[in-house]
């Protein structure tokens, strides 16, 4: 909540920046904006709190915490399968350029592949990954 107020206050400072008069102390001006935004946030929370119920454990399906990781395990298995379909060069190119966000020149120096072959490898890997993405089961 405090972070929200800070964000809101910063936005408001920006919106009403024309009301600050150069030469006057800035602290009371900002303090008034922050106070007002805090009051707004407290009111909003009160309003929402009267109508809605928060249940932090509502997302948990099973009592055993490991049981809730099924989806996570599923995703990592799929990813592993998809990555398994790539050649070594393609996997290296994707890893360096897309995941570690190196520039093509840096990746070329690091891996020994030429820039041209990096580009080709990335292109082919992306294509392969796209097609190997499992179809969404119908809802």
């Amino acid at each position: 909540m405090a972070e929200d107020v800070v964000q809101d206050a910063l936005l408001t400072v920006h919106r009403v920046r024309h009301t600050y008069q150069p030469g006057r102390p800035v602290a009371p001006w900002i303090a008034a904006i922050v106070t007002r935004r805090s009051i707004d946030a407290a009111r909003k929370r009160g309003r929402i709190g009267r109508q809605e119920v928060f249940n932090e454990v509502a997302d948990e399906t099973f009592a055993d915490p490991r049981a809730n990781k099924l989806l996570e395990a599923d995703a990592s298995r799929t990813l592993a399968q998809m990555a398994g379909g790539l050649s070594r060069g393609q996997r290296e190119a994707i890893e360096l350029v897309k995941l570690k966000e190196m520039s093509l020149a840096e990746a070329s120096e690091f891996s020994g592949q030429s820039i041209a072959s990096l580009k080709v490898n990335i292109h082919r890997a992306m294509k392969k990954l796209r097609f190997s993405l499992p179809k969404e089961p119908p809802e």
Partner: protein
Amino acid sequence: MTASPIDKIINELASDVRPVRPLRAPALRALLAIAAIGLAAAFAIVVLGDVSGLRNRYAGREALLALETLAMLSTGVLAIVAAFVVSIPGRSKRWIAAPIPFFALWLLLSGLGCYDDLVRRGGVGWELGESIHCLRFIAATSAVFGPLLIWRLARAKPINPLPVALLGGLGIAATSVFVLQFFHPFAVTFIDLAVHLVAIMIVVGVVGLVNRGALAPA
């Protein structure tokens, strides 16, 4: 100079930014708005007003009239100035109370005038009849000057619009009653005073209700 990426982005974003034009001092902005309203009102009074009626009505009671009129004018002016001041974040909230003493003085003097009139003339003037014109006059005058004032007040995008709206409403309503003085062919009775008050409350209420929509708060 080796600029970091963030410095570079900031410099790029700031390169075509136009400087912020700060609002002028609230008192000055208030005086400009009051001057505009005053000019329009003065024109209307000169063209359509009934100044001799005003003189006859208060013959022998000029001091009371002057004080009463001054009190309602001060209420209007101070409420408008206060609305402009509190629309700026961080200004003293005491401004909200500024028009109240003059408002009280006005009601007191107006009440005295009514009582005086009642004693002199007996129970005449207890009918509502004519007063409905006053209500209409105050509402109409406020409907003309209100949007102008709200437009000027909205420039500040007040972060807390309600006090600004209420003060603006009081300022407009009090100014309207002041202007009404020059169109009032008969002395103020208690019914009149009550009708004026109701009209003021209606105007303040309406402006208070539309505060968020009209003042475009930040």
